[in-house]
Each structure stands twice: as structure tokens, then as C-alpha cells.
């Protein structure tokens, strides 16, 4: 479902920094993949390219048989909205919106009416077990609750893949395991999940661990 072929990416910032050096990767539908790697190995860059947040220089990237290359910002936004769900380390909820409004935000950009999208958002909050917190602001919630809201938000558009960037990085170990359990249960329902982490314990909860080394795939191990 995700097909990366010979992806090259350099950052030119005074001197040129070659981050991804001809990376090839296949991720099948329904997989739960953990990407690990030392800092600077290119794992974040890879995730950004997967999330259509960043462009790549050469190679091809197919997401669900759609070539993701040289997209206009408008089309990229549309694809992000419909194909990808994001979960971030620092949650990235909008601080002045309630939980349900945050979850409904991607639907707002699809033009779904307010009543309809809040209904759908409530469904997903309920699924995450935090329906009671729907009308609370992020500042009134714990880290674990915020991440559940964020996961609900990533799921609300029924995307093709969830990209999770250190989803447990800001959480304590108990909460981390809870969040991982949620991700696993989401995966069990058929959702493809790609997670970047540097925590071996969290990576071990995925089905596959992909290690990035010097801009290419170092090793792939099945858990």
C-alpha cells in the first residue's frame, strides 16, 4: 500500500545534507510498523515524506496506488486530509477548541456540516473512551487523554494510514502502554499504522521494526 522506490532527499542549508539515500520501502495494508533509528538517520524525514508534509528529490512514492509527487499545495492538503491521519508527540491539539471540536477539525476541511461532524467526532471520542471529556479544552486534560483525542482526530476521516511520530514521547510509561494498546486495537480493526519511535519497548509492540541507518533501510525485523 505504501511503495517507496529509490527515494533521495537532500537539505540544502549552506552545505548540502544528503538525508535519504535511495530508500526503498514497502508497507502492506493492515500492517503496524515501527520505524527506529538514531537521531539524524532520516526517520523523521521519511515520516514527513510519507505524510506529504515534505517533498523528495528523486524516486517515487505511491500511496494506495496514487503517485505522490510534485503535488500542488491544494492537492497535497486534500490527500493529507483524506488519506492520512497524524498523531504527534506533543499532541498538537488546538488549544482554544474543545476535544470534540479538535476531533471534528479534519471534517471541517472536508466541508462536513457542523452537526454531522460533531456527531462523527463524538463517535470516535466514545471509541477512545473519553466521550465524557468532549466539551473540555486540551488544557483541562491529562497527556493520555490528549493523545486519545489526537488519535480520535487521526481516525475521524477514515484514512488509509496513521502516521504516529513518537506518540508516547511525552507520556509516562503506564499511559504510554495504554496509548499503545489503543493503537494496537485500531490496527486490529484493519488500520495501517506507521510509527516513529526511539523507545525499543514501544517498537516491540508493533508487528515489524524497520531500522533506518544513514538514509537507507538498515534492517527489517518481525516482532
Amino acid at each position: 500500500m505504501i511503495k517507496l522506490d529509490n527515494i533521495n532527499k537532500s537539505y540544502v542549508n549552506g552545505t548540502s545534507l544528503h538525508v535519504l539515500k535511495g530508500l526503498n520501502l514497502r508497507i502492506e495494508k493492515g500492517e503496524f510498523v515501527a520505524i527506529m533509528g538514531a537521531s539524524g538517520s532520516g526517520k523523521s524525514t521519511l515520516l514527513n515524506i510519507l505524510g506529504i508534509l515534505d517533498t523528495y528529490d528523486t524516486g517515487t512514492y505511491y500511496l494506495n496506488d496514487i503517485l505522490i509527487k510534485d503535488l500542488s499545495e491544494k492537492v497535497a492538503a486534500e490527500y493529507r486530509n483524506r488519506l492520512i491521519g497524524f498523531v504527534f508527540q506533543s499532541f498538537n491539539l488546538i488549544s482554544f477548541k474543545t476535544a470534540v471540536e479538535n476531533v471534528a477539525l479534519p471534517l471541517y476541511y472536508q466541508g462536513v456540516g457542523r452537526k454531522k461532524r460533531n456527531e462523527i467526532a463524538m463517535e470516535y471520542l466514545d471509541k477512545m473512551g473519553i466521550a465524557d471529556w468532549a466539551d473540555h479544552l486540551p488544557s483541562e486534560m491529562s497527556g493520555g487523554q490528549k493523545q486519545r483525542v489526537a488519535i480520535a482526530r487521526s481516525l475521524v476521516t477514515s484514512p488509509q494510514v496513521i502516521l504516529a511520530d513518537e506518540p508516547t514521547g511525552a507520556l509516562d510509561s503506564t499511559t504510554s502502554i495504554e496509548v499503545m494498546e489503543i493503537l494496537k486495537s485500531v490496527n486490529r480493526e484493519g488500520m495501517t499504522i506507521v510509527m516513529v519511535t526511539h523507545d525499543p519497548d514501544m517498537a516491540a509492540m508493533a508487528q515489524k521494526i524497520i531500522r533506518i541507518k544513514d538514509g537507507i533501510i538498515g534492517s527489517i525485523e518481525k516482532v
Partner: protein
Amino acid sequence: MNNIFDADRWREVWMSISRNKRRSFITAFGVFWGIFMLVVMLSAGNGLWTGITSQIEDVPYNACMIWTNSTTEAYMGFRKGRYWDMKQDDIAAVKAQFPEMDIVSPVMFANSTKLVRKDKTGSYNVKGLPATYPQIVAQNIYYGRYINEMDVLSKRKVCVLGKKIYDELFIPGENPIGEYIKVGGVNYQIIGVTDQIPTGINLNGRDGEAVAIPYSVVQQVYNRGDVVDMMMVTAKRGVTISDKEDEITALIRSRHSISPTDKFAVQVVDIEKIAQRFEKMAIGISLLTWLVGVGTLLAGAIGVSNIVMITVKERTKEIGVRRAMGAKPFSIISQIMSESLVLTVVAGFFGLAAGVGSMAVVSKILAANPSSGAFFQNPQMDFTTALVAALIIVVCGLLSGILPAWRALQIKAIDAIREE
């Protein structure tokens, strides 16, 4: 999708404005003040315009005054620096030569003279005027009538008092008509009380502070013979006086052996030119008020732009998240622009209302205390100007949103959500 009339969108806008109420308020105040000042200045300019035009609307545009001065050129055996007098004959000659002229009348001036009425006295200017005078300097008649042709021909010892003299020498409400008053030792019967309608044009002081007697009486009583101090000329409809001035003065020069090139000896004032000067002044003032007002408003709009810019900077992360969630460039632009627009428009219309309201109060106060000859009347904005002002507000709102919106567009989702 993301329809302009979508209530959600405005809800988003309102949320981001109301999140920092004090900052939004201070910013909005800049625009409020700008449009308030614009309205006040435009209204004031309008008031000035109304005041000036109401004064010059009574001016006979097609009129000029001619009077004498010493010669500056030796001519036909006469030395330069010679004093000369216009004569009654000159009036007749101009009349005969220029049938296209309407009024050709003499005016006489006598020096400040003592007036005695019962136990009250005062010193006032005396003007010797023709019956046609009110056609050139319009008069408000408070009592009686003005000097007529019969008064002039029969050299009747009658006078028209200026309103101010009446106020000083008579009891308020007292009818002065038929009464006698001593002017420089000679008794005159009072036939009227008048004052000139203010035009900004005065002949030897204001009429309200002078005694008018028939010019023929001045010539006789003050031993001036057939001398004429000033000639007033108006042209008939369809004839422009300024085109004829040179011909008229040329005739006068030739009749008095004055060099044709001696401009100084024959003085001419064209009333139309004076009126034009007033009009130009009023136009200049109104231009200035627009300039300063729009400038103030622009400063306010730049303030809004600045604040929205800061807001954008502060919301880098939020905007980045929105983009990651699928916000299209247009929806980001329209959101930021809408914020600027709402802030500017709301503040602007409050400013407009406050400005119009306070000028309405000023108008009322001015109307309640009318002073004649006020150069400042009814300082209010007309509807078109208000519409233009409203349009300017909206344009300013859009303009002030452009830069922040552009800035917001530069925010890439990846920059915003990058973990530090």
C-alpha cells in the same frame, strides 16, 4: 466547501479574535480612531464648505469695483504721481459705451462721522450709496426700506442705519422709521435698518456698522461736487465682466489722460476672482481633510496588519496543524483575511457611528447658537461620503489582511509540528 457564508468560518474567526480580547481591542481602537477622525475631519471640511458657499452664493459673481489711485506714469504732459478723480460723467460714459453692462453706479465714502440720537452718540462710517447697491451687496432689511432712485435724484436727507448702530443707539424693539438722527451735524430721516448678508466682501467696512445715505447727498453735503470715489459695475447675463474690465478701464484712462499702461492708477477688483479664491481654499481644505483622515485610517489599518501578523506568528503551530489536517491554502488565507476584515470593519463602523453621532451633536449646538457670517455651518457628512468611508474601511481591512495571510501561507505544516 469553506463557504464564505458558512457560520463555522465566522465562528473560527470570532474565536481567534476573542481569544486575546485586550490586544484585539487595542488594535481595533486604532481603526476606530482612524475612521472617527476621518469622519470628524470630513464633516468639519463639509461644514467649512457649507459655510463658505453659503456666503458666496449671495455674491454677484459678475461684478467689479473700480477706484482711483495716483498715476505712476507721466503721460500727455502730465507728471507722474498725479492724483485724479472719477467723475459722474464717467458713470454716464461707461453706461453709454457698454450697453451690455447692467448696473453702473457710483459709491461715495465719507470719513468716520459722529452720530447723535437723543442722548446717545457714536462714531461711524458714512457711505454714499446708489439705489442699486443691494443688488451687489445683498442686504437683510430689519426695518423700513433701502435707498431708492427718488432719494438719490431728489438728494433727500434720508439714511439707512446699519443693524449694529441701531442696536447701540435704539432700545431693542423700538421702531426707528421716520425718526431723525444727526450725522455730522446734519439731520437725516431714518428710512431703514439693514445689514449685509455676510459674503466676506466688505466695501470700506461692514454695512452693519455704517450709515448709508444717497451718494448724491454725500457729494452735496461733503462738498465733493461730481466726484465719484468708486464705480460699481455688473454685467448683464451672458456677459463676463472679466472680459470687459480692460475695455472699461481703458475708456476711463482715456477720459482722464492716463497712460494706457498705467495699471496702478485705475484699480479694479473682480468679485468673481475673490469668490474663486474662497472656493479654492475650501477645496484645498477638503483635500487636506481627506488626506489626513485617510492617513490616520491607514495608520490604523497598518496597526491591524501588525497585530494580525503577530497573531499569525503566535499561531504558527496551530496553522501548521490545520495544514496537516488538510486545510487548503485558500482556507488559511481566507481565515486570516477574515480576521483582519472583521476587526477592521467592526471597529470602523463603530468609528463611523461615533463620528457621525458626535458631529450631529456639534451641528445641533451650532444650529442652536447661530452667528451670522459663520464660516462653519452644519458640519455633517453626506450619505455618499459615508458610503465612501465605509468602502475605505472594507478596503483597509482587506489590505491589512494581505501581508499576514501571505505570512501564514509560508508556514509549512512540517515547520510547525517539528518536535523541538
